[in-house]
């Protein structure tokens, strides 16, 4: 039971990151390899703010602001000039951004992992199971964020514009949708979600280092692909699925060492059975 809750909460962190991947992918048609590192920047923003003023609420707001601005700046500086260029060029640039963010973080803060205490919620006991309150908080808030995002995309004009751009950029442009603004906005939202993920991450694991974002980043990317990249509900389902499977595997001693292998095998199996992921749309190549 407690494994399941742990898994759900880890899953919702993955889901938040995966949402960023999937939205950027759906709209800008690029793999934002630097997305995981936005999380890292979020954790350092929290670390610094906590050291300066000590109010968790301020730190969280700060993380969201810093990440959003960073996401937009990265998009403007590194990706926008390459719009229309070979996709591989964009991918390589994203990798460059990832290296850049990590090395800057290391130059400022050092490679040494640093403890970060945001809020210490403690734990509650129901009968025989002890639950971490922060886990429950993560679960609840992440659910609210995801519901909010879904409503935003479905109901608001901006959200529908995003959908339109992801469907067909050229047509959307002809319909008068400001495509560049929409793409920038997508990066902003994706990065804000990454900031939220960094908050939840610190609630689970109270430490940070310059490479803190790579592993969750790549796992979340996997989750996004499992769910069908480009699909928002897919990212949520994929993230939660992956989180639960990871925790369940880790709690079974015989499977524990093979957790990563199992997660990635799951990805391969799903892609082979359903080549566009669980909820991915299937389109046909024109002949």
């Amino acid at each position, binding site marked *: 039971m407690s*494994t399941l809750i742990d898994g759900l909460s880890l899953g919702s962190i993955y889901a938040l990151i995966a949402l960023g991947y999937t939205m950027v992918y759906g709209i800008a048609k690029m793999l934002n390899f630097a997305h995981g590192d936005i999380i890292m920047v979020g954790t350092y923003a929290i670390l610094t703010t906590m050291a300066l003023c000590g109010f968790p609420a301020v730190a969280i707001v700060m993380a969201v602001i810093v990440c959003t601005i960073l996401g937009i700046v990265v998009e403007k500086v590194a990706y926008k000039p390459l719009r229309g260029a070979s996709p591989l060029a964009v991918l390589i640039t994203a990798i460059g951004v990832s290296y850049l963010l990590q090395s800057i973080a290391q130059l400022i803060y050092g490679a*040494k992992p640093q403890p970060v205490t945001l809020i*210490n919620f403690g734990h509650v006991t129901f009968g025989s199971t002890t639950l*971490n309150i922060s886990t429950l908080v993560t679960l609840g808030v992440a659910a609210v964020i995801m519901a909010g995002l879904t409503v935003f995309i479905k109901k608001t004009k901006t959200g529908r514009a995003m959908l339109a751009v992801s469907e067909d950029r050229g047509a959307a442009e002809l319909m008068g949708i400001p495509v560049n603004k929409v793409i920038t906005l997508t990066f902003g939202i994706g990065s804000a979600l990454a900031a939220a993920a960094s908050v939840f991450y610190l609630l689970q694991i109270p430490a940070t280092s310059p490479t803190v974002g790579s592993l969750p980043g790549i796992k979340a990317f996997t989750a996004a692909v499992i769910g069908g990249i480009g699909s928002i509900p897919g990212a949520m389902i994929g993230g939660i699925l992956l989180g639960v499977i990871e925790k369940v595997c880790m709690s079974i001693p015989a499977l524990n060492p093979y957790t*990563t292998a199992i997660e990635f095998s799951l990805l391969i199996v799903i892609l082979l059975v359903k080549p566009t992921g669980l909820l991915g749309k299937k389109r046909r190549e024109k002949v």
Partner: protein
Amino acid sequence: MKKFVRIMSVVLCVVLCAAVFAACGNKKSYTANNTEYFIGATGPLTGGAASYGISVQKGATLAVEEINKAGGLNGVNFKFEMRDDKAEAAEAGTGYDTLYEAGMQISLGSVTSGACKSFGAKAKEDNVFFMTPSASEQAVIEIGDNAFRVCFGDPDQGTLAAQQIKDDGFTNVGVIYDSSDSYSTGVYEAFKQKANEIGLTFTEQKFDAENKVDFSTQAGALKDCDIVFMPFYYTEAALFIKASAAKGSTAVFFGCDGFDGIAGQFTATDKPANTIKYITPFDVNSTDAKVSAFVTAFKAKYGEEPDQFAADGYDAVMAIYQAMKTAGVSDVTISASDLCNKAKATITSSSFSYTGATGSMKWDASGACTKSAQIVELD
């Protein structure tokens, strides 16, 4: 892109030519131009284990400064350089080559065990003396007769811990260790052996270098234990302790010398109520004259309290200095191999002993060091 290829090929040609000239050098004469005795070492200055490397570097640098201030060895100064190895064996090997070619004459080996084995293997080939401050795995000093250490060996700590836990009357015992770290695995193996010998039963959990941030699974499995033995480093230990506390564990956390520095990982709000204690040869609050002199000097230079690794680094340099002094080394361009033979003979002689920040030490031909341990509790 084509343009880049072109530029690149030009640069490469230049580099190639430069490399050819640089490549020609006489292997024998690397130390010929030395004006100071060169002590080299590798250690993790970046990556997860960076704090140990940095501590050793600080301690060793302090020692070298003190020696030079006091006139060096017959008026010749020492210099110390540590290269980053990220606690990885391959990097330590590269670091060794760089140092050796830069004229290293004697060395502190590497800070961590895995890296030190790779460093030591090369050092043995060239017959370079090394005195590792903190690579405690048994295999390190088994590399050859050029290998020495100032720290405890892994087996000693594991055995001591098992005995201690048994003596304290704990029955519900948990152990967690880092299966990718030879120090951690070494202590664990010794602990297991001793525990089986004396009939102590325990539950075990492990983790590795790529899964050392999220401890909720292991913490969940060990949350009902009365005592958890944790033979690994403090950064991960702090995370494990926090994860355990979040799971409602009331266990005593019992660590090894790698725990030194754990106090800095907690703030007033997240310091758990559990007892945390560890084995260490070095107590920063000791009233011993040698220790307090070291602590004062360290604080004055770096503005922070030294940990055990800093003390080990300091002692390793001081021990080398004393050995060289006793051996009567007088030629600053002495080759590493010649210096090794002299230092070896001196340090293993029964009359040689050294007393420093981590107590009084003597060495035998195995390279192991005999000194006493204590258990410190974190308040």
